[in-house]
């Protein structure tokens, strides 16, 4: 078990390094235009050259990569080209909002998708058909359309929620809840049905196992079979579904933040991309990979703990 | 042995690499030697994990030969290349246990039977005629040609597999548990077919099975495998009725007979044997 965790951790670090290097090189392919973008079209070539030198862009890519990596080890990811704000701070101030949305959404999806999936697998009938149809609908509507639709319906037509968030660094819990409810609903709607459908399949696969019939023959109650045995055997498949959902949410939240004007990582990333603020883009990629690696590690640990073949050895 | 020797396996060792990176290789066969004469059947009997299937697969080039030699028709085939195998496949063929996975479900029976012919350059009307002949040989209707395997029962599929093995008129067919997935009456029909084919074509069989009764019925000679070694081999009658090795005796005594009174006696004999072995 411990060796498994260490191995996954090492593999995660390797992934992080590979992605960091590739992204850095990719982003710096276009570094030539950065100074002109910042200074505007009127800037003299001398000013551009000076700016380039100031940003360190006149160095070869490998030198800059080396600098960046040695900084990154100390959590120094450079500064924004435009605001001079350190990347670490910029991300740190946006992270809570985004993580709050993503974590709330994945928890809601986990609970409701498991309940719906179980119900569909056990009861079949109309619940099952409903989950299937909802999954098709959910897969067909892109996240931004759902977001736009919710704004139009709940914020403009019925005026139940604010269309735009008013979260600022010092906002209280109430503002957060009020501002994030609609975005979280949008994120949950986008992923719930397809997660439920996949969890349903995982359950049906387990319900068809021979040992379920044998447990019934021993006089064990349906409830115990379902919640103790089947739930546990279906858990690894369910966790895989949820971890993929989580990765999807990290992408989906970018769009949702942009619709609801939420000052999170997604907005930061989109703005930095449009402006060409490479250190910020780089920082966003690194943060995303770290989050994914941590989530995958948690999933691996839970799965390992659930599987006696791994746990015992 | 009075007849010419067709296949000789001498001191064969088969090892599979271990699962982990530096794990010790897993040795499945520990120096096994057998011989099969032309037109003869060698029955290879043993329990699961005894290595009998691996021996068959090594002869076919489907298992790695670590040590020892396999000589077929005077030619060393222990490490034959794919090209050598292509030439060899004229004379050396196979019938597998499971007729459900040994036939490609998406090909018609005609295509399945034509495959070995095509490799040897037999195509067109010649191949078609040969396929018809083969279907006839295994007592399947001619219209089977254009149908796919799932339209057939287990026994019929096994007939198709036998026909495929016969396509190139081989000298030796490795039969790997060819009847153990079949119902009792189907098993009897397939065994009848295999015997009939041997009588008319003079083919040799390496007949792998876990069932002593089946092996006794079709074999001239029998070899008994246990934990990767051959513990006893000899004339079929002798090995399957009055075996010398305690393991073979145990195997023989464990197989139940369809008569309550004789079975009760056999049961007692088995217990006595077990007690004697334990002492």
């Amino acid at each position, binding site marked *: 078990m411990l060796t498994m965790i260490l191995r996954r951790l090492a593999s995660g670090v390797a992934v992080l390094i590979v992605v960091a290097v590739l*992204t850095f090189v990719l982003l710096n392919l276009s570094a030539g235009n950065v100074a002109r973008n910042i200074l505007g079209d009127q800037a003299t070539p001398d000013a551009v050259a000076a700016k380039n030198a100031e940003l360190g862009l006149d160095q070869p890519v490998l030198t800059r990569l080396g600098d960046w990596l040695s900084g990154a080890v100390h959590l120094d990811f450079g500064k924004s080209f435009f605001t001079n704000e350190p990347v670490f701070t910029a991300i740190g101030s946006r992270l809570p909002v985004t993580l709050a949305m993503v974590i709330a959404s994945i928890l809601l999806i986990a609970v409701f998708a498991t309940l719906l999936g179980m119900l569909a697998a056990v009861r079949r009938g109309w619940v099952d058909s409903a989950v299937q149809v909802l999954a098709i609908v959910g897969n067909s509507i892109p996240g931004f359309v759902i977001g736009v639709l919710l704004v139009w319906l709940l914020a403009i037509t019925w005026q139940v929620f604010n269309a735009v968030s008013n979260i600022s660094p010092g906002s209280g819990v109430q503002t957060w809840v009020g501002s994030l409810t609609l975005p979280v609903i949008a994120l949950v709607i986008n992923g719930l049905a397809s997660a439920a459908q996949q969890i349903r399949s995982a359950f049906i696969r387990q319900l068809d196992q021979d040992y379920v019939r044998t447990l019934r023959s021993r006089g064990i109650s349906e409830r115990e079979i379902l919640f103790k045995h089947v739930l546990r055997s279906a858990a690894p498949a369910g966790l895989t579904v949820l971890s993929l959902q989580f990765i999807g949410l990290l992408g989906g939240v970018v769009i949702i933040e942009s619709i609801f004007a939420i000052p999170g990582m997604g907005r930061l990333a*989109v703005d930095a991309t449009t402006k060409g603020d490479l250190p910020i883009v780089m920082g966003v990629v690194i943060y995303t990979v770290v989050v994914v690696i941590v989530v995958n590690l948690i999933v691996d640990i839970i799965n390992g703990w659930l599987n006696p073949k791994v746990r015992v050895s | 042995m009075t007849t010419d020797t067709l296949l000789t396996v001498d001191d064969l060792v088969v090892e599979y690499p271990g699962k982990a990176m530096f794990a010790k290789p897993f040795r499945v066969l520990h120096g096994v030697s057998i011989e099969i004469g032309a037109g003869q059947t060698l029955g290879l009997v043993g329990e699961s994990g005894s290595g009998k299937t*691996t021996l068959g697969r090594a002869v*076919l080039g489907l298992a790695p030969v670590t040590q020892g030699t396999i000589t077929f028709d005077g030619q060393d085939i222990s490490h034959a290349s794919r090209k050598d195998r292509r030439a060899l*496949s004229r004379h050396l063929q196979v019938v597998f246990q499971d007729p459900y996975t040994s036939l490609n479900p998406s090909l018609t029976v005609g295509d399945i039977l034509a495959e070995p012919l095509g490799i040897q350059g037999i195509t067109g009307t010649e191949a078609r005629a040969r396929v018809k002949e083969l279907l006839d040989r295994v007592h399947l209707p001619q219209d089977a040609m254009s149908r796919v395997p799932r339209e057939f029962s287990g026994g019929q599929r096994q007939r198709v597999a036998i026909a495929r093995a016969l396509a190139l008129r081989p000298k030796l067919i490795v039969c790997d548990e060819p009847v153990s997935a079949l119902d009792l009456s189907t098993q009897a029909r397939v065994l009848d077919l295999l015997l009939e084919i041997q009588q008319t074509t003079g083919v040799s069989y390496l007949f792998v099975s876990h069932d002593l009764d089946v092996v006794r019925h079709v074999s001239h000679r029998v070899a008994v495998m246990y934990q990767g070694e051959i513990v006893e081999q000899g004339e079929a009658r002798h090995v399957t009725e009055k075996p010398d090795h305690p393991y073979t005796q145990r195997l023989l005594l464990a197989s139940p007979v369809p008569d309550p009174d004789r079975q009760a006696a056999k049961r007692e004999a088995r217990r006595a044997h077990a007690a004697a072995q334990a002492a």
Partner: protein
Amino acid sequence: MTDSTSSPRVDGGTAPAAAAPSGQSGHVLRSSPLRRLLKSPTGLIALVILAGVVLMALLAPLLTSQDPNHADLTAVLLPPGGDHLLGTDSAGRDIWARLVFGSRLTLAAAAVAAVVAIAIGLPSGLVAGYYGGIFDGVANWSTNVLMSLPAIIVLLAVRAAVGPSVWISMVIFGVLLSPGYYRLTRTAVQSVRNELYVDAARVSGLSDGRIISRHVLSVVRAPIIIQTAIVAGLSITVASSLDFLGLGDPTVPTWGVMVSDGFKNIYRQPISLLWSSLAITLVIGGFVLLGNALRDSLEDLEKTKEKRAKPAGGRRARPVAVEVGTEHHLLKVTDLQVAYPQPRGGRKVVVDGVSFHVDRDEVVGIVGESGSGKSQTAFSILGLLPDNAILTRGAIQFDGAYTVAPGEDHVTQSRLAPLRGKRIGYIPQEPMSNLDPAFTIGAQLSRPMVTVMGLSKKAAKQRALQLLASVGIPDPNRTYHAYPHEVSGGMAQRVLIAGAISCEPDLIIADEPTTALDVTVQAEVLDVMRELQQRLKIGIIIVTHNFGVVADMCDRVLVMQDGSLVETGAVRQILHAPQHPYTRMLLSSMLEGKTPMTHLLADSTAGSDR
């Protein structure tokens, strides 16, 4: 790498759902997947939508006379009607024209991503799956990396590096989607590589290239088509998301940009949002539906027409008096008929008019070949038939009371559930798959004694250890704490026998209890069962295909063929003087006592085997 002897017979018991329909009889209707696709309503809807969009893209210049990029600041945000069929956007551009021309880019984007993803995923999956080794390791690792990156974030980085280009975005997105194809292909190839027909092709000397093209590609073709439908939908989602975020090429009319423009003017002209959102959803929905319909048509998963029997948990079972004079039988089955609804309508009867009884301290064997209905008969006594099974006729009584009364079409679980475990035990065929791998043997063995017999946990453990010893397990304590994967098949089967007798039942139903075991282990397991039966004086029903097992264990024998009982009698009578031709044929197929190398059956050339 090891031998695979004594694989379980293909029988109703192992796969009840499949036992009823396929596999048994000769002809199966064949219809092409495409035809089935057109027949299914979802498939038809999907094809109509997608054909509509393709036509729209091809005929775009004919469908509108307006220039999609012509801005007219005097005519912004016009409502539908007049010169502008669907109105204008915030720059005064014609919405219909932009919608029509937007379909071109949408489809092209999907095509680019799919082609790139297939071009990378398919060959690498083939190589990794077929050869394994280092390439497989590297490819798997890269796949894991690609799959752990949210596509939007990667595409943002690419956009920051190379500027707005839908083509570059879609090429990169194709790379990100290639793991889907890679995994699909690799899994399919790995399973095919181990199929015996590929071994047969190798023995024939077929080259790897020919094996892949002939035997492997045909297997992955269908899943790839389904995956492509899904990928197309995803590509459109992502491409339009980027456009919506304002990261696309502003000079090209796209649906994503249109939604974005509509959203900015949501207070002034909300209707302008509708068309582009609808178009995107419809096209993606078309691909999603197509994928679903394709999968259904390939798996031939037509929904069974007949509704399944309602679970009867809540309904109160009315007691019905059993036939007078039969109360003393431990079990009595009368005129039982079991059927399954068929995909193409109608029912298939798998047990037909079976009547028999079992008394206390009696061992009854049910013998037959696959498809004879012997396992189905056993499971109807336990009330553990698959959900879609229907008891079309007959009654089952246990210890003087009906578990299935005449006229009931399903097992009343509220009557049977209290009997299972406590009064009726079950020994399955396959030892390993019948133990839950996630729980220790001890937990699985003692739990029923706590819930059914009401023992304390400690008492249950004591008894479990005694039971393990009584079925001949050498170290009960070790086995008690072991997980199923840590014991051998023979030991696992003893554990299951211990489980069946744990709550002191009166009747045990053993479904091919030794078929999956080696013959020496079979003998030992039968010894255990016989000794327990004689000690506890229980009734046992043994379902088997092996007359040796019958001779070893049974007092009476029932012979079944095609769902019907053809002969019943005392064991000596059946084995020594069988009356029915089918019983005689079965017995003559036995090899024991036959002269070697002689024909077993008179009509063996008939090729009529089942």
